């Protein structure tokens, strides 16, 4: 047995417990491993490369537009890769392949939910968003509405979404790095926080985008290699792969059909809504649409992103089944001490073990380094969108009423990045031993219930007024958080009560309905003079949304 392998193998606890009904589960404690030299060397190479890019990007990042949106000079293809990078987190790579390893078909159901938001973004949002906005989605939502009220609301929605997403990523990062690299949890969290601050403050959106692109290529490349090796093992016969998996899996033929993931129709539909429309309300994703020069490039970005993400989910499906055949049957990867005979290091190690099974120690180190890089890139994107909400929405438009000095605003954005980075480190350490499995789900629910309704309605419904948007958006935010806290994921699993007050894990079906109803009632009962002006400005907004006439283009360098 190789040394590198032994180190990884002896991990005792699950990094991510078997996925519950929602999102990236980040439960359980990982046991610190001895230092893994191969993985660390490869990770250092990644860090050196990305710091080089940050240095290059910093020299090209002077204006506000450079900092927030890389001057609008990213191509559709590059942006598609970067979006895919934002979306393919380490938790989805390890979590979905683990779900396929554990229950087969259910993993496919789960990944499909994460993909179907993209066509909806394309058909309903992408081009209007690009034509109307400049730096944040609040630019669009507040286009004809009251700047200060809407931006306060949008910034709250952005920061809360980013905070929950960030905590989940930081805790996941700490656990994963402890497990794969043998670094101390706190060291890992601080390392991620500091690197992310460096990328964002010095390199802005340009560096963040390229870090994202490189990471996406490494992850897609690594996953493709694993899927290829799995298919080679079964003689490139899909049928053989499934047959061998069914033959050795403890659930036998049951892994080829829906299992326990979907409990009841209400949960299934509610989860589907959260994933579909939450994707269309994630601030760090929406911000990516302003990095390309026009609507045509924005559409291309969505197409490439959908293609890469869909391809990635198909790979995780093959990887999960490959792990059943190659990892699940090899006692080398199994935890002999546990009665259930699960994987060493926990169920979420399926893809990591498979990396060793098909590519040996070096490839194991490579995949570990890619997982680390993935977390780093995702937190950088999240932090940049949070910092932009602080500097562009709150500082420049709410505090300075649209009259902020450009250099001051950039400075505020950098301070906000540092503050968010430190906050992420602190929260990552505070939540180390907490069950944060519900947080990604909550982030999606808030994005779907607070951000998405006001963004969509402001663009397509003439009747939306500031009053309606503020009432609907606030109610959506409040109900998504309240129902999540009262639901099984927090009330039972975190707070330890016996039965949940709200029976479903995913609140989106209810909180989205409340948000849309609030927007509607608040708007139609709004008889103010301001409401009349806002409705009359819809025509001008419509022309710009549909044609891009007057939209901000790429800035020249």
């Amino acid at each position, binding site marked *: 047995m190789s040394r590198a392998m032994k180190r990884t193998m002896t991990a005792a606890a699950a990094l991510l417990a078997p996925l519950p009904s929602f999102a990236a589960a980040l439960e359980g404690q990982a046991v610190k491993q001895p230092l893994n030299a191969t993985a660390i060397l490869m990770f250092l190479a990644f860090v050196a490369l990305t710091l080089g890019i940050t240095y290059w990007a910093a020299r090209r990042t002077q204006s506000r537009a450079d900092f927030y949106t890389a001057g609008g000079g990213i191509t559709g293809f590059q942006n598609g890769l970067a979006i895919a990078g934002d979306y393919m987190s380490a938790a989805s790579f390890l979590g979905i392949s683990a779900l396929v390893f554990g229950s087969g*078909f259910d993993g*496919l*159901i789960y*990944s*499909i939910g994460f*993909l*179907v938001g*993209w*066509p*909806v973004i*394309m*058909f309903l949002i992408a*081009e209007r968003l690009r034509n*109307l906005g400049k730096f944040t989605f609040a*630019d669009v939502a507040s286009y*004809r509405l*009251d*700047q*200060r*009220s809407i931006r306060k609301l949008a910034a709250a929605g952005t920061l809360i979404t980013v905070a929950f997403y960030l905590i989940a990523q930081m805790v996941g990062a700490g656990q994963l790095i402890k497990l794969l690299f043998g670094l101390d949890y706190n060291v890992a969290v601080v390392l991620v926080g500091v690197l992310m601050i460096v990328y964002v403050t010095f390199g802005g959106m340009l560096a963040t985008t390229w870090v994202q692109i490189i990471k996406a290529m490494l992850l897609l490349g690594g996953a493709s290699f694993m899927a290829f090796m799995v298919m080679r093992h079964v003689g490139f016969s*899909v*049928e053989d792969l*499934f*047959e061998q998996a*069914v033959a050795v899996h403890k659930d036998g033929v049951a892994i*080829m*059909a*829906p299992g326990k993931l*979907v409990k009841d*129709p209400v949960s*299934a*539909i509610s989860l*589907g809504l959260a994933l579909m429309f939450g994707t269309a309300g994630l601030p760090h994703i929406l911000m990516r649409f302003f990095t390309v020069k026009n*609507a*045509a490039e924005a*559409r*291309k970005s969505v197409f490439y992103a*959908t*293609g890469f993400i*869909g391809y990635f*989910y*198909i790979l995780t499906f093959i990887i999960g089944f490959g792990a059943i055949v190659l990892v699940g049957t090899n006692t080398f990867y199994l935890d002999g001490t546990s009665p259930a005979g699960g994987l060493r290091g926990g169920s979420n190690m399926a893809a990591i073990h498979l990396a060793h099974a098909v590519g040996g120690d070096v490839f194991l180190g490579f995949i570990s380094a890619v997982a680390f890089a993935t977390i780093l890139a995702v937190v950088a994107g999240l932090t940049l969108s949070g910092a932009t909400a602080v500097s562009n929405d709150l500082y420049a*438009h709410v505090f300075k*009423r*649209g*009259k902020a000095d450009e250099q001051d605003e950039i400075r505020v954005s950098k301070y906000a990045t540092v503050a968010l980075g430190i906050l992420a480190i602190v929260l990552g350490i505070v939540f180390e031993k907490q069950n944060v499995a519900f947080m990604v789900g909550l982030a999606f629910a808030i994005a779907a219930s607070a951000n998405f309704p006001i963004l969509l309605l402001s663009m397509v419904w003439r009747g939306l007024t*500031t009053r309606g948007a*503020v009432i609907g958006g606030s109610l959506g935010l409040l109900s998504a958080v309240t129902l999540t806290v009262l639901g099984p994921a927090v009330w039972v699993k975190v707070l330890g009560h016996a039965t949940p007050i709200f029976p479903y894990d995913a609140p989106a079906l209810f909180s989205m309905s409340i948000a849309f109803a609030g927007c509607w009632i608040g708007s139609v009962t709004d008889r*103010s*003079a301001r409401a009349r002006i806002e409705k009359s400005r819809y*025509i*001008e*907004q419509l*022309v*710009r949304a*549909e*044609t891009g*006439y*007057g939209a*901000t283009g790429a800035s020249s360098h």
Partner: protein
Amino acid sequence: MSNENPTHDGAPPADEVAVAPEIRRILESPAFAELRTRRRRFAALLTVLMLAIYYGFIVAIAFAPGWLATPISGVITLGIPLGLGVIVAAIVLTGVYVRRANGEFDRLTATAIRSALS
């Protein structure tokens, strides 16, 4: 409302967009009307299609899991091609939209803007 001030604070849209005559001309151009109708219809059709495909799949899982478990070839069940089909459909539908939008719709847009500026 926390803010009683009905004026807009001079954010990008208010002072960057040249309002009035040419906006009016774009609005009234036949190409713009054509663009809106065609695009709305196409986007609505594709959205409904995507929702139907995805929720059809979810409803099948919730109410007819046995049907999805029907073997079609060896151990492969009907659910496998259908599930992978949803992924492929999502990619294909976005591709179909981009193709038409970046071609036909963008040409109409250019015509609408040109007619308004001449």
